[in-house]
């Protein structure tokens, strides 16, 4: 290499090579390394964020799939019935009226509503008399397998000499606060009070 009618000295050559390497390094740093690093960091941050979001979405999906499966199971097995939203008392009283229409006599005594979290319990005592055992059995079956969730607790039955059946039962209608509208009759949440 000859410029200005003479060769570069070794020191000059080394210096030029060093400068060239520095220039290449700078260019690499500016135009390759920094953008690539920034892009990778940005992608990784986005990946982390998306992964967190995806984990949450997948967990929710898994939960909802479990919920769906349980609903399907409950539907196929009959379950315990549908809980109406609070306040469903009108529907329940109408239902009782329909169920007990054929009895010889009946008496219903509602206790105070009990709230535990979203669960509302409407306890009542039911007494009725029917002409025979089959009719009493039919009434209780309709009560238990009706549209509104109703569970019967203790019960007692006596059959008199004429075959008339008197049945006393404690029962509960279940409602939920999901979709319900609080009113003056809604008691305080006993679960919250215990916490």
């Amino acid at each position, binding site marked *: 290499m000859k410029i200005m009618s003479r060769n570069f000295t070794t020191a000059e050559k080394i210096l030029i090579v060093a400068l060239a390497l520095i220039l290449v390094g700078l260019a690499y740093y500016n135009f390759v390394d920094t953008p690539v690093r920034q892009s990778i960091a940005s*992608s990784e941050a986005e990946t982390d964020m998306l992964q967190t979001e995806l984990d949450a979405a997948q967990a929710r*999906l898994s939960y909802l799939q479990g919920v*769906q499966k349980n609903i399907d199971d409950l539907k196929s097995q009959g379950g315990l019935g549908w*809980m109406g939203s609070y306040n469903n008392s009108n529907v329940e009283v109408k239902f009782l009226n329909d169920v007990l229409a054929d009895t010889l006599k009946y008496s219903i005594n509602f206790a105070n509503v009990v709230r535990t979290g979203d669960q509302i319990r409407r306890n009542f005592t039911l007494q009725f008399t029917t002409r025979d055992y089959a009719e009493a059995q039919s009434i209780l079956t309709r009560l238990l397998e009706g549209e509104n969730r109703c569970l019967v607790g203790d019960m007692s039955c006596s059959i008199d000499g004429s075959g008339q059946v008197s049945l006393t039962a404690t029962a509960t209608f*279940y409602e*939920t606060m999901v979709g319900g509208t609080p009113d003056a009759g809604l008691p305080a949440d006993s679960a919250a009070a215990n916490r």
Partner: protein
Amino acid sequence: MAAVKKTAAAKGKRPPKKGLHTRMPTKRSINLVLIDENRISPLKAIPAILIIIILAAAFSKFMVADRLLEMSRAQGEADRIKTTLQQTQEALENYEGIEDTYAHMTTTGMTEEELGRVNRVSILELVSSILPQGDYTRAWSVSGNILTVEITGRTLEYLNELSRRIEKSPIVDTCAISTAVKNEQVQHAPNAVAQTLVDALDSSRRQVENGLEDFVLSSMINTLQPVVSERIQARLTIYLVKPPEDAADQSAEAPQEGAPTEPRAPQRPVKGALAPAADEAATQPEEVSAP
């Protein structure tokens, strides 16, 4: 040049004739600088070029291409997760409103006692199956998962056999005779049985041909007469249990919701053990325990 001409004239040489011009090379300057021998030997150049190419290739591969590949991979991973997330969110849209539906069907808020109760319809069916077995069932009651049936039977042995049959029901864990009494009051029970039969027949009187009802009545009373002389008033205590499939159904709960534990049946005695005698029956005469 002037010095050269002068030297030629001085030596007597004629000057060149006019018009005759001999072209002589003239060189007015002399480059005394030596031309460099700057040829690069191929033996040195080729390896050097090869080394430079290898270095450049290595640099391009490891410092540029691989980094770009790494960047592309990172972006691809982000895109992949983004696509999966979109698919998951689309799938989630299909389950919209399902939680509200489940809230109306769930058994989450119910107590173990409520979930552990034996289906009352099954109890009614069980009692219904007992009624014709006993000669005279006066009353029954259910408290928790314990069914108590007041029954009148011919003999204690007969009632014991009845309790063994009851135990075959899937909702019965064990059945025991808690009290068994034979007394004056019981002796009158057949009359009540007969009266019940008469009442039953009376209601269907119009459907029975004339004459036949009397025959049926007398036949029944005659049949019952030898039996009523030995009557045992007993109380059967039946410990109910939830069938395994029912218990499994009730315990099905959604994940993450703190599903309730599987319902447990209340404590009950070992199968075949005697049931505790009821307080009110303890005063009856000739009270015997089940064998």
